[in-house]
């Protein structure tokens, strides 16, 4: 974290937030050390169900999943509050904007510096998460599609952190109160990510498995590690019926009256091979939203400070 080669507003930004930079570096190193230690300490219990392996690591990974979901919110809150709104609230922007540096360069250097820290730190955290995940991947609550695991293992988290950066820059300028801007940015980032997350399973066409109808409440087995979507019954004409359509009539699961013409049952699912396409498409969408937020942030800046 040498400040020797930094120039101009970049030097100022790094100097101003050097404690935060050390804190980020410390947090990443601590995560790495804890994860490595956990992997050495915690060994699989021989002969048991893999879903209950690595008891300590599982708890730690559960926390890690939650922390990784919250990471973009923390990034957004920091950019909006301490980096932007506080300058406007405390009046130090008057100092910065009356030096020989244009407003765009002032905000730009702040955001570039933040980005240059956020991206490698997020990538490092993803790497650390994947390190621990290697031992529990594919087991209960650590499937690739699980909330937390999905974000924490792929590039989508980097894009989410950059979206938070853009939203922070925008909201920090609009709400010139440090604490309010932090809270609001956390909220808005969370909501936007939640909405984008709702689209996640529609980003790729699902695959469908059909299986013959057998009596009993049995859902056809999708390939291992698949994300199971809708399931139900298929008629001879190809129409889909809810899974309990026959039960409604016969009171026996999957035993259908002849007039319903049910010939099979189906399951829609995303196989684990959809992980990368979905990750990359979602990353693209979130990056596009980040670009929109950043553009808006600079528009607001230019409108206020010629």
């Amino acid at each position, binding site marked *: 974290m040498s400040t020797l080669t930094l*120039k*101009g507003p970049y030097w100022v930004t790094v100097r101003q937030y050097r404690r935060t930079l050390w804190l980020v570096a410390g947090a990443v190193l601590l995560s790495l050390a804890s994860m490595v230690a956990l992997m050495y300490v915690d060994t699989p219990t021989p002969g048991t169900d893999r879903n209950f392996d690595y008891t300590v690591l599982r708890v730690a990974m559960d926390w890690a999943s939650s922390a990784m979901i919250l990471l973009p919110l923390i990034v957004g809150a920091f950019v909006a509050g301490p980096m932007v709104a506080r300058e406007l609230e405390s*009046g130090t922007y*008057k100092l910065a904007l009356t030096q020989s540096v244009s407003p765009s360069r002032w905000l730009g250097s702040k955001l570039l510096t933040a980005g240059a820290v956020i991206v490698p730190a997020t990538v490092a955290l993803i790497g650390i998460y994947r390190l621990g995940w290697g031992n529990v991947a594919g087991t209960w609550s650590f499937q690739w599609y699980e909330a937390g695991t999905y974000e924490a293992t792929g590039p989508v988290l980097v894009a989410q952190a950059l979206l938070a950066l853009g939203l922070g820059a925008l909201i920090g300028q609009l709400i010139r109160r440090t604490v309010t801007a932090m809270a609001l940015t956390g909220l808005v980032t969370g909501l936007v990510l939640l909405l984008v997350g709702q689209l996640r399973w529609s980003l790729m066409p699902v695959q469908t498995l059909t299986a013959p109808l057998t009596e009993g409440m049995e859902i056809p087995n999708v390939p291992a590690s698949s994300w199971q979507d809708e399931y139900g019954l298929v008629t001879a004409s190809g129409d889909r019926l809810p899974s309990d359509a026959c039960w409604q009539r016969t009171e026996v699961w999957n035993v259908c009256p002849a007039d319903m013409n049910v010939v099979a049952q189906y399951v829609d699912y995303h196989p684990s091979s959809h992980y990368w396409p979905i990750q990359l498409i979602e990353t693209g969408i979130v990056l596009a939203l980040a670009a929109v937020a950043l553009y808006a942030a600079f528009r607001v800046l230019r409108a206020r400070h010629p």
Partner: protein
Amino acid sequence: MTRDGIALEADLLGKKYGGRGRGWALRGCTFALPAGRICALVGPNGAGKSTLLALTAGLLRPTEGTIQAPPREHLAYVAQDKPLHPRLSVADTLRMGRELNPGRWDETAAQRVMADELDPHALVRDLSGGQRTRVALALALGKRAELLLLDEPMADLDPLARHQLMGLLMADAAENGTTVVMSSHILTELEGACDHLLLLRGGQVRLDGTVDELLAAHTLLTGPVADLAPHTVVESRTTGRQLTALIRHEGPVEGPWETQEPSLEDLLLAHLRTTPEGAPA
């Protein structure tokens, strides 16, 4: 850019703040300040002094009218609350001045203001108000600006520091031909230092000109109560049959009064005491 020889020019300049209960902070301001002047910006609280300085510094956009000031690179501004980054050290704050003003930063000028009075490693948040003022002024002078905008620069300083820094400021401005606009409530601090006066009141320019011309245009008279026409009365007081008045004379003052040229303080006080309509308060 500004016209030749004019450092700062406003034309029907107005600024209205948004929000309930807030009106025009400044309206219809027209003036031109020649380069090289040391201009005192005077007016009661809420007259629009800080707004005018922030508009000049480019931190606010005018609501109407125009203001012609040097670009960001060529002006320095010390805001009234002396904003500085609290967690930077004194040395880092000056380094910031150098980093943000590449090619123009004058470390000698900045250090002259510091005058070895402060520990370079001290954090800004631990400084007293007066010490912060010193750092803020060092940043402003180190920038080597053509136009120096100072919003109540001396308010936090002890008399000794005020005297020293005022002297330094005047010497620096004279040496470099810097134009200075300085708002202040401390009238004695302006007397002798400023050669130009801009008096704001209710968001409008009430007086504008060189101190010498303004003083010569006014007369302080004492004597019997009588009609003062055709002169413009700025302020008058009667004690029994005795009249004391400050007038802006139209032609020679002829009458039974004793006349003298007012001091800058007399002139300012008289103008500050009167209501915006021009009648004595």
